[in-house]
């Protein structure tokens, strides 16, 4: 009966129900979009790092993110690293900004990523057309198909000038987006160095060394060992480098703070709207609550009716809000900043909605706690 009464109270005033639901909807969609953007951004920022299987990264001192590696590491460091006990492989990875000259004029900035996966380096994922084998053929590069227009090419076989050399699109990936909005151009280590003009002056210049441990080697021991040998470089675990990249892009730039702040604001507005409508609904039904009290109901019973109203609103609002949020996620899939919705985020959103509605019920519950059953006679 508690739920029946809650349900009837809720649907009794349709306009108020609509306002309540709009409040919840607004909140959920806003929070979903903000957190979806946050997740989407995090994924973009860390996806390259996440797709390597090296346990340790050797970076130049103070490298803040995947794009910030510089080109200061040399083969000297590589040899020192290779001489460290417990180290199985040290694979160079070149990451650097370069100019992509569009075939029809003008240019755009790209991030050239060069590595040799067959040596245990890094390999792009999500190939849609072509494979890494195609990228290895002369002038070959792989780009994400979402950047075709920006790079002024139409697909496989098109060519452009990047840095010091010519490239030809040999493979297309799907779903590799760049947080900096400069598209990634994946190629072999040698070709990357060539495009960046390094083969002439510093053929061994590298941004990172990916370190793979020998079986049974202890991560911390190897790492400390590496640290003491490499004075001008830093040795980070993959997770540390990942977190550092995230912090750099999301928090040092304020983008993450804005996203999380926006989510909180959404919650706040939603809570205020729902609290307001629940409160006025409770006020409207005060005589009924007083009657319940006169009939001997415990105050807990009445609170449950109000919480029932809050809970029902939450469930209905969540279902509708999620539908809209999913539509937004779907619509954003081909934009430069696609939203991400995960089952985990959906669960979090539901919990947040329930929590928001429970908090909203507080003012109504406080109102009803002060109820004097004697008011049933004064009508």
């Amino acid at each position, binding site marked *: *009966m*508690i739920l*029946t*009464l809650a349900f*009837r*109270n809720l649907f*009794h005033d349709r306009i108020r129900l609509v306002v309540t639901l709009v409040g919840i909807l607004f909140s959920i969609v806003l929070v979903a979009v903000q957190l979806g953007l946050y997740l989407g951004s995090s994924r973009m920022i860390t996806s390259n790092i996440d797709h390597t299987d090296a346990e340790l990264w050797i970076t130049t001192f103070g490298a803040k993110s995947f794009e910030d590696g510089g080109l200061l590491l040399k083969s000297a460091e590589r040899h020192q690293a290779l001489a460290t006990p417990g180290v199985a492989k040290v694979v160079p990875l070149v990451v650097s900004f370069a100019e992509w000259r569009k075939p029809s004029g003008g240019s755009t900035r790209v991030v050239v990523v060069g590595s040799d996966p067959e040596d245990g380096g890094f390999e792009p994922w999500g190939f849609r057309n072509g494979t890494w084998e195609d990228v290895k053929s002369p002038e070959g590069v792989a780009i994400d198909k979402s950047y075709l227009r920006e790079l002024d090419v139409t697909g496989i076989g098109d060519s452009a000038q990047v840095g010091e050399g010519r490239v030809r699109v040999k493979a297309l990936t799907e779903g590799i987006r760049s947080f900096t909005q400069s598209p990634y151009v994946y190629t072999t280590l040698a070709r990357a160095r060539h495009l960046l003009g390094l083969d002439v002056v510093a053929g061994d210049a590298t941004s990172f060394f990916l370190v793979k441990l020998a079986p049974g080697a202890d991560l911390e021991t190897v790492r400390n060992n590496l640290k003491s040998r490499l004075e001008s470089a830093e040795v980070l675990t993959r997770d540390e480098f990942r977190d550092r990249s995230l912090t750099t892009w999301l928090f040092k730039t304020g983008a993450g703070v804005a996203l999380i702040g926006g989510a909180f604001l959404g919650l706040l507005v939603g809570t205020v709207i729902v609290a307001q409508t629940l409160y006025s609904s409770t006020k409207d039904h005060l*005589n*009924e609550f007083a*009657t*319940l*009290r*006169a*009939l*001997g*109901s*415990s*105050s807990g*019973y009445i609170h449950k009716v109000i919480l029932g109203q809050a809970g029902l609103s939450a469930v209905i609002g969540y279902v509708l809000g999620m539908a809209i949020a999913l539509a937004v996620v779907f619509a954003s899939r081909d934009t430069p900043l696609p939203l991400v919705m995960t089952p985990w985020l959906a669960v979090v959103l539901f919990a947040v909605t329930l929590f928001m509605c429970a908090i909203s019920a507080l003012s109504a519950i406080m109102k009803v706690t002060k109820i004097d*059953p*004697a008011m*049933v*006679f004064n*009508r």
Partner: protein
Amino acid sequence: MTGEAVLEAIDVVKELGSGAGKITALKGVSMTLKAGELTLLMGPSGSGKTTLLSILGCIMTPTSGMIRVAGNDTEGQTPEQLARIRRDHIGYIFQSYNLFPTLSALENVRIALDVRGKKGFKAAARAEECLREVGLGHRLKNHPANMSGGEQQRVAVARAIATSPSVILADEPTAALDTTNGQQVMELLARIAKEQNRSVLVVTHDPRTKPYADRTVYIEDGQIVREERRPEGLDAPEIADLTKRRKVHG
């Protein structure tokens, strides 16, 4: 036939309001309600009838004096404990019915059972039984807005008796009803007192209710001034069986 005392007020004083507006609504009232008896409480407007009813029903607490429900003193009880006494012992009927507009007749009765933790099929069956008892077996699904005042008040009676309280307190239950409907409700209440051996107290202005009373208590200015008892052997008017009447019509 009268039974044991189920509800007692002993020397009850009640002050209402505060400051300059403070008045003593009850000035030392003692009263005993017994099982199987229908008592009328009559008196001019403002004499303290509703106040006394609220105190007897543990909705208000007296400023001084004592209320005993089923032999237990209620002094010092918390609001939650008083609520428990209400749901265990007392049924209410109000002048303006106080039904839940969003619930059907059946649900209106069920909620009184639900408040007492009686749920499910059994509660539904009990609610239906009570509605049949007040002659509303054919109105189970109707909402208050689609029922006459008399029918609504009978739903309220069903709600009050559903939980088998030992006392039923009614504040001007017939005031909003026409003569026929008012009589029906009074007949019901008298029958409940007799057949179910409950104590029924009816606050009223309405002289037409007098024939149903075993006892009439007069209150003036917060004090009981007179009490009349129906002479032994003189029965209430024909107590109609609404269930049967329904069948004849239906």
